[in-house]
């Protein structure tokens, strides 16, 4: 089966500073892929590059992004705009800040329908109500004419999802969709995404720093660290036999309900900023298994016995 989206050796740079370095992964139609990593690992930048929404100054330095057999990384803005919101849609972390405060929720959904699907005002408005019902917003007929500040955080994110679903995209990119929400609301949003994905057969790229969310919904996982892919594999294998010391450390940092209460092992240090990425393996300075050879050359992804692929020369020693 050919991939819906292929990211091949993608590097993104701001000026001379590379924030993404040789990132590769793909997504099959209907698949849910999780990208995990701490803040600053390059997760969101990867998603923005896919959408052609890199912040000012950012550019794709090398590599390709191929979506539905079209190389989107080379498309002009006009062609990209036709694809965005129609074939590939995106939702963001802060549902309050991501909705326009001076336009009604209905208008923000309906304009997508009018623009991409050529609907007239009345049918776009009706379809907006149906979409709000689809994302399980109560009293959709009333909510459609309300403004974002009149909605709760969970409802705003549902409205964002309704906007994203308006044109039944093949791929939904969800950048930390539940991070800003309460735990119970989070579960509701994840349930909704899972259900919608089954209903429409759309692929979902879920970006999160929360491995619990990944375990909940993702089939495959890409672990990123400091602008590179650290490890990738099926969710089951990643959780059962993580090969990369960074993945292991992330998993160890998940709080568990069972067992004795103790201090939560945190990963010492922080993700370095792109301007001072270390040579060789970028995780080496924080890695308990690091040897001098780790800093000599950037490790490449290689298949491990556990079923995952990890960019670590010490994986066998770290297990």
């Amino acid at each position, binding site marked *: 089966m050919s991939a819906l989206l292929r990211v091949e050796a993608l590097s993104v740079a701001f000026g001379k500073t590379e924030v993404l370095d040789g990132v590769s992964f793909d997504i099959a139609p209907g698949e849910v892929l999780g990208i995990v990593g701490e803040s600053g690992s390059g997760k969101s930048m990867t998603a923005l590059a896919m*959408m052609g*929404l890199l912040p000012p100054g950012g550019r794709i330095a090398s590599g390709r992004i191929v979506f539905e057999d079209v190389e989107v990384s080379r498309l002009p*803005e006009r062609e990209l*705009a*036709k*694809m*965005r*919101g*129609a074939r590939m*849609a*995106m939702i*963001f972390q*802060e549902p309050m*800040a*991501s*909705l*326009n*405060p*001076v*336009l*009604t929720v209905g208008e923000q959904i309906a*304009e*997508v329908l009018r*623009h*991409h699907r050529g609907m007239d005002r009345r049918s776009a408005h009706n379809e907006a109500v149906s979409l709000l019902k689809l994302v399980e917003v109560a009293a959709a007929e009333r909510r459609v004419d309300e*403004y974002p*500040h*009149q909605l709760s955080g969970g409802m705003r994110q549902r409205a*964002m999802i309704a*906007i994203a679903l308006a044109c039944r995209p093949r791929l939904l990119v969800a950048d930390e969709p539940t991070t800003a929400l309460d735990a119970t609301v989070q579960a509701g949003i994840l349930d909704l995404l899972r259900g919608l994905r089954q209903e429409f057969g759309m692929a979902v790229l879920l970006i999160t720093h929360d491995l619990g969310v990944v375990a909940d919904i993702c089939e495959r996982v890409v672990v990123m660290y400091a602008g590179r892919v650290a490890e990738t594999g099926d969710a089951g294998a990643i959780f059962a036999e993580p090969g990369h010391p960074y993945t292991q450390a992330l998993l160890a940092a998940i709080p568990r309900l069972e067992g004795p209460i103790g201090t939560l092992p945190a990963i010492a240090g922080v993700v370095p900023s792109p301007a001072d990425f270390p040579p060789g393996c970028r995780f080496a300075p924080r890695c308990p298994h690091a040897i001098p050879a780790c800093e000599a050359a950037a490790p490449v992804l290689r298949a491990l016995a556990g079923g995952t692929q990890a960019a670590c020369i010490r994986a066998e020693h770290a297990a």
Partner: protein
Amino acid sequence: MLRYALRRILAALPVLLLVSLMSFAIVWIVPGDVAAEMAGPTATAEELARLRERLGLNRPWHEQLVGWYWALAQGDLGESILLRQGVGAAILERLPVTLSLTFLALGIALVAGTALGVVAAVRAGKGADRAAMGAALVGFSVPDFWLGLVFVYVFAVQLAWLPTGGYVPFGQDPIGWARGMVLPAATLALAQIGLFARMTRAAMLEVLRQDYVRTARAKGMPGWVVIGKHALRNALIPVVTVAGIACGVLLGGTVVIESVFSLPGVGRLIVGAIQRRDYPVIQGGLLLTATIFVCVNLAVDLLYAWLDPRIRHGR
């Protein structure tokens, strides 16, 4: 929305009351004998007494106050000493000139300034931005009386495209009205164009960084929709606030512009009245100017609520 509008209108009433009180008090605040100043050094005692009688100055102050409001309630602003005409009629006659000048200038400044500011913000740091902001600074710095004279010299005297001055009522000849108004309104507007351009640029730069602008782009909206609908509507909120203040400045600026372009407006009427100590006209002029200003700010408040639903819902 209706409740918000009513609240704003109610809030404007005390201001009007205060202004009317101040207009009344002018006669008491100015040093010296008002009647003596009005009548001039050659007036006889008999003439002075007659003037005092006419102005009601010989009555106790509370009677005068009641009389002032009683007359106001009937729309009577008193009688001009020099024009031998009712103050209300004298103002009404000249009001269309001043109002067309002010609001035409406001319109020009808003449209041109906002457009300039949007272009500058979208092209921030590039040539177009620097050109627009340079032009704004020049517009800001050039005195309006000088610019007015330059405009008259170039467009009216040298090119002879437009009249040097004078006023044609709109009802009589709309094209003549427009030809007569273009130069003075543009002159008056120029400094405000700079103000609006800078305000719009700053607001747009702020708004363009917001997540909802990124959302609009993620939805595949074309660039002009992202800028003109999603960003500009949010950026206009602070700009509208400035428009209220600018309107006051423009109204004050009409005094100079009316003189440069010899337009028979309220500004010149008031200046003449001040020079000749025609107190009833000064009082009427003050009352009128303040009322216009209050109305404009009321309009700004309502516009505000229309632009921003959060204000409408009292949050």
